[in-house]
């Protein structure tokens, strides 16, 4: 899927995406063209078998007071692999812009792997910009705690994975939440 999106002055767009192993992955480039344009891009990744999931997100802030939030969360299992690269660019003159890019991956199997490249190019100083990335597996301490309360290991893992996605799913528009939960059912 290759998409190009332009957001005009005063528009606020929410782009919810779910990727479960499309070999072409997702390429999304977004231009924030008018004053006050806002983007929220939410991407849920779920990789199983030997799915390859290339993700490429480009956001360019052209105008003042534009805002972008790109939130990516993925669960990777079996032999699958996620390749996430993102670029947030703030051009000169886009004063008061606010950009945030976050990518978090949970690796569930011994052979799962991931690559995260969150780039920033900031050419204006009157801005706020940041990014965060993390890659890891299920927190042993949390798992131990849940199991000590009488939950089986699969049940405890299910809860933790649900919890990992919950923060992002909460931001999804209502009609997508059901769909997302259905797609995620196989791992949970």
């Amino acid at each position, binding site marked *: 899927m290759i998409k190009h999106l332009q957001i005009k002055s005063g528009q606020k767009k929410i782009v919810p995406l779910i990727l479960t192993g499309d070999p072409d992955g997702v390429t999304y480039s977004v231009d924030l063209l008018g004053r006050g344009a806002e983007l929220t891009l939410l991407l849920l990744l779920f990789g199983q078998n030997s799915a390859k999931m290339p993700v490429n997100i480009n956001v360019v802030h052209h105008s003042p007071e534009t805002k972008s939030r790109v939130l990516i969360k993925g669960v990777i299992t079996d032999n699958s692999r996620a390749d996430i690269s993102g670029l947030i660019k703030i051009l000169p003159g886009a004063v008061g812009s606010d950009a945030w890019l976050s990518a978090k991956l949970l690796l569930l199997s011994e052979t*799962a792997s991931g690559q995260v490249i969150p780039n*920033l190019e900031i050419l204006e*100083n*009157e801005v706020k910009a940041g990014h965060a*990335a993390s*890659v890891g*597996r299920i927190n042993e301490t949390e798992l131990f705690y849940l199991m000590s309360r009488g939950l089986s290991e699969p049940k405890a893992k299910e809860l933790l994975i649900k919890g990992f996605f919950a923060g992002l799913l909460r931001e999804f528009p209502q009609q997508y939440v059901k769909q997302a939960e259905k797609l995620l059912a196989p791992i949970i």
Partner: protein
Amino acid sequence: MTGATRLADLKKSYRLGFHQPESAVFKTPKGLSRDIVSAISHHKDEPEWMHDFRQQSLMIFEQKSLPAWGADLSGIDFNSLHYYLDPSDRRSHTWNDVPAEIRDTYEKIGIPEAERRFLAGVGAQYDSEIIYHDLKKQWEDQGVIFVGMDTALKAYPDLVRRYFGTVIPPSDNKFAALNSAVWSGGSFVYVPAGVQVSIPLQAYFRINAANLGQFERTLILAEEGSSVHYVEGCSAPIYSSDSLHAAVVEIIVKKGARVRYTTIQNWSNNVYNLVTKRMLVEEEGVGEWIDGNLGSKITMKYPSVILNGKGAKGEVLSLAFAGPGQHQDAGGKAIHLAPYTTSTITSKSVSLGGGRSSYRGMVKVAKGAHGSKSFVRCDALLLDQLSRSDTYPVNIINEPDVSLGHEASVSKVGENQLFYLRSRGLSEAQATSLIVNGFIEPIVKELPLEYAVELNRLINLSMENSVG
């Protein structure tokens, strides 16, 4: 004294922008060829294997292209550079033996003082040759070796031959190949097993001849359970034609050893500073880079730690300061090859007056390096609307049992902070200096005292020129 006059005084007292007339003894013609490489090797009376190593490296250099990423290097004219210059016939061991003119230069940077106070050994590099060496007797007794690379090649041929080019082979990149072909100077440090070198070893590097490329080569070898801190500082007079600095630093940290390498680099604003630095850390070893980049026209430098043994630990602290016309492309790399290895990369960059600073880094966790942890933090401060800041982090994870975190932020000097400080009577320049110094403090506090002081002064000077 008001802040403005204090800054003005500092500017007056900034003594690093001077240069001495050249008095070279042996200098190769401009450009690079097999003959020039042979001439360097023969002039230094090197063994055959080194001569061959140089020739092979030259071939690799000619085959490799410039990196397709990073800063713009198209301005380097490899044919207009001198690749070797030997400023002095004499190799000396006491201060009084050093030629007066060169001694004068060092006097101005303050080496003898620093030596008296903090240092036990000084290897000072003037142009391409180490001309002055002094090592406190206690270390010689312990078996610590701290000599120029050229001396080491003659005095410890087996050690050098065994490790030279093993961490950074000539084929690593174009500039590593160039260095391997024409290297001269740099330090060789050997710390025997179990020896703790408590006072930093220090070498000063200077480029003093216009159009002179500097290609020093440093090799540090810390045997099992030893520890050493090596400090390198650079400052260079200002010239109109471009100079190239392409150093290679190889460090081997054996089991349970600890090496810290501190650099404050302040080349003049026409120098291309392209350095390859890498540390190989074995089991339970600790390798640390502290890397400050203030000067130069373009810097491309990514100190790396290769964590090759169980429980090895690596740390990179990178500081970049990009003023007008400068591009600091700096960062760090951590390659986890063994279980339970940990790495931390902290980068702080400041851009002002149209300068550009880029963080470029990589964390790679290989399959099987389970239980590894890595954390990368990069913060950028943009002081005006002309400047630019980039972050290019690469994280490649091929092992599920890891914990990797990466955070970055870009900000400007906060209006509230500025307002508060000004309401307490500080000028805008003073307030900004204070905020910038606070921003870089996590790195500055790791520096030896005299470097921290010099760094603060340099930053105050830059602020004065740009703010208000």
